[in-house]
């Protein structure tokens, strides 16, 4: 098996695992009524570790899986997650020296932007997400939790990226 197919296989496995955790557990893990968005987190981590292309591709598939959970239009999460994954890669590239704290900050900010972008696009397509009175609470909780969960997600993404679990890449 060549390196490219191994990479695809690993990322696919990680996406499926994340999806199962999201639907099996995290949908009910709702601090203040808001659940974490680990599919979005995966896109951000892919961007941080694999660069902007990887972030966009992983974000696209993570978003598509996420859209199958929701009753809104198909493709909204895919677009948002892909853009955020791409941006995370660009941001990480512009940082001279990576650190765990910077990765956490990128994950938190990226999550906030991703949720806000999702709300805007959904609103454009007829939902009431942008006018949801809990919008800022949702953004805050998702970004804080994703910022913390990023510490657990990064090693797994490192494995998927073929960098090794113990590599010092953030």
């Amino acid at each position, binding site marked *: 098996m060549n390196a490219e197919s191994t990479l695809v296989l690993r990322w696919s496995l990680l996406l499926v695992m994340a999806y*199962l*955790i999201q*639907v*099996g*557990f995290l*949908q*009910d*893990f709702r*601090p203040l009524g*808001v*659940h974490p*968005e680990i599919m979005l987190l995966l896109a951000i981590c892919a961007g941080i*570790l*694999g*660069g*902007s*292309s990887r972030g*966009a*591709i992983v974000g*696209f598939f993570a*978003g598509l899986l996420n859209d*199958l*959970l*929701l*009753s*809104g*239009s*198909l*493709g*909204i999460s*895919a*677009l948002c997650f*892909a*853009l955020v994954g*791409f941006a995370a*890669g*660009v941001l990480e*590239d512009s940082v001279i020296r*990576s650190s765990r704290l910077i990765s956490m900050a990128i994950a938190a900010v990226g999550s906030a932007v991703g*949720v806000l972008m999702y*709300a805007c696009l*959904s609103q454009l*397509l*007829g*939902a*009431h*997400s942008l006018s*949801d009175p*809990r*919008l800022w609470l*949702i953004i805050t909780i*998702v970004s804080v939790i994703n910022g913390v969960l990023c510490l657990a997600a990064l090693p797994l993404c490192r494995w998927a*990226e073929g*960098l090794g679990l113990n*590599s*010092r*890449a953030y």
Partner: protein
Amino acid sequence: MRPLSQPGKNRQRSRYVLLVITLLTITIITLDARGVPMISSARDSSRDALAPVRGAARWVTTPFRNAWNGITGYDELREENEKLRSELGQDTANAMREQNAQEELAKLKEQLNISFLGSTQSQIARVTSGASSNFSDYTVQIDKGSELGLAVGNPVVTKGGLVGRIVRVTTKRSVVQLITDPDFSVGVTVGADQNQGVGHGTGNTRTFIVDRGIDLTDEVQTKDSVFAGGIENSIMPPDLFIPIGTVDKITPDEAARVQVLQVNYTVQFGRLDVVQVIKWVPAS
């Protein structure tokens, strides 16, 4: 560590990838919004295929979810625990099992004896999941689909009254748009005089608003019952009167020359479990 990017080629490739993905997603969104059958059926098939996976994942994670619910609902749990402790001496495990079965049966029987349905064909279904999104999407999923004759537009009710209508159907599952959705508008008849108007959800699970069709001269009082249906060319069956709730507050709107009715739902949306789907579809 990720190798440093080669500015020229890598950046160009990244932009190309982003462009392709953006165009692809915009195409998917557009096709889905226009209801192209290929996208809808692909989406429905994927949902059907993923449903057992979701079920299995939820089954595996039950202990974790229970633990979390135990932590977050500590007060409720403690209260329940005390109650259970006091009952422990009287109840054996068998009796409790029997009680559970009876409760389940009672719930189903309750749905079988919905008086306002008459002899209308219907299908009992169970609510399998609530909102999957952090944002309120005013939908629930039920465990029955087109293989049992359910179709888009079918009204969904409980003994309490109208719950919503089916907006998406796959072979084994359906998505129900709740009446609480601000976009859910329905023709209503109000009170003994059967005044006709149009109402809509407000986004919360307590209040429904009727803000069209009830003239200032129409006789409406608080506690009057509000029904969906009984109107020709409505999204609800014209020969059925499905309860929505009772009038709580009446506010005259002089500018629009109507009375605005604030209606309290008779359905408890926080406790939706078993529902009944009326096998009737609107004419258009």
